[in-house]
């Protein structure tokens, strides 16, 4: 093989590797179904009709959730790409069909890459404020 062919092959290999790095979709898996304890499944939202809390929820969502879930809950936050599991799209019907109790458990108890927020958001009213805001997405 001529030297020039070797150089060409090498260049093609480097270029294709470079393009693949950007072109191939990242292997981000979808989360497996959650096992929600009965206590949470039955849980009602005591602040469901408190419209004033939505603004508080938006503020808290920005502080605690936005970096992974994105400002509009599309799962496209700045940290989302580093996660093994897609953080979910909050705007789709399948997500919004979750009961308030399900969302409470998923949001604040968490599992795997979804951290537990019980010690960061200690007031239940604040937790429900975030759920109320997520319902508006």
């Amino acid at each position, binding site marked *: 093989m001529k030297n020039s062919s070797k150089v060409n092959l090498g260049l093609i290999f480097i270029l294709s590797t470079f393009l693949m790095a950007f072109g191939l979709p990242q292997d981000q898996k979808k989360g497996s179904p959650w096992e929600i304890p009965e206590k949470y499944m039955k849980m009602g939202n005591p602040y469901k009709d408190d419209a004033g809390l939505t603004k508080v929820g938006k503020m808290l969502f920005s*502080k605690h959730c936005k970096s992974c879930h994105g400002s509009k809950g599309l799962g496209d936050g700045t940290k989302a790409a580093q996660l093994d599991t897609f953080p979910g799209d909050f705007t789709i019907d399948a997500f919004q069909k979750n009961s308030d109790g399900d969302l409470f458990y998923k949001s604040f108890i968490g599992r795997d890459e979804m951290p537990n927020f019980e*010690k*960061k958001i*200690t007031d239940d009213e604040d937790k429900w404020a975030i759920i109320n805001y997520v319902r508006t997405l």
Partner: protein
Amino acid sequence: MKNKILQLILLWICLALTSIAQEQEQESKPVDKPVRSPFEGGMLIDNQTGVIPVKNTLEMLIQHRFGSMENGISDFFGIYAPGANLRLGLNYSLLDKLMVGYGLTKKNMYSDFQAKYALLQQTRSGRIPVAVTLYGNMAIDGRSEEVFGVNYKFTNRFSYFGQVIVARKFTEWLSIQTQGSFTHYNSIEEQTDHDKIGVGISGRIKFAPQSSFVFQYDHPFSVGGKSESEPNLGFGYEASTSTHIFQIFVSNAQGILPQDNYMFNQNDFMEGELMFGFTITRLWGF
């Protein structure tokens, strides 16, 4: 005698019934909670705020002051200038209202032990309109013995700082606090006061859910009239997330430790004797 015993029993029953009634009344009242995050964290440039993280939270602080900006672009406005100061601190919330901590500062190798207690918390209903917080520290100068001259005693290294902070969150975007303080150094150079009284005002103007403009002004008053130090003015930007708080600012005091700022600051803000600084706070809940 029997009558007296009867009267005592009746009195006791009345008192017991009254206390039960009061408990029931308290239970039926809605809980008046403290206002939500009047400040993002426990520090506001050089000042403590009334915020204490929830019980069992460990807080790590990295506080940095660069060199003076006076030389302009030649040392990139002090960022690459010599004479920077650094404090590394760890605080732990023993209770929701009580935090203790330790820090080590490069200047004078101060080791400081501090405590902060939330005496009153502003409530959402307005029943308590302001938050009142007490802060105190004791610092030990860690330099070599020779610095302290003749008649050296270990207690010569000690300095103390006590402060009362009165804060109010006016709106979701505006929080202001005033602080009054007393500084004492056990050993100090001749022609210098041992004590200083300080008053100040600082605040936060929040312009986005995670971003705020922060400012402070601290004015020292001489006790004894022997020595003067310069007021400390600072302003900057604060960003916060769930577990981090980041502040970058310009100010004119480099001591980091409050008693050092009040006692020794000779930088004049109006003369442009300023420096960049930043504080990184990291929180861990246990």
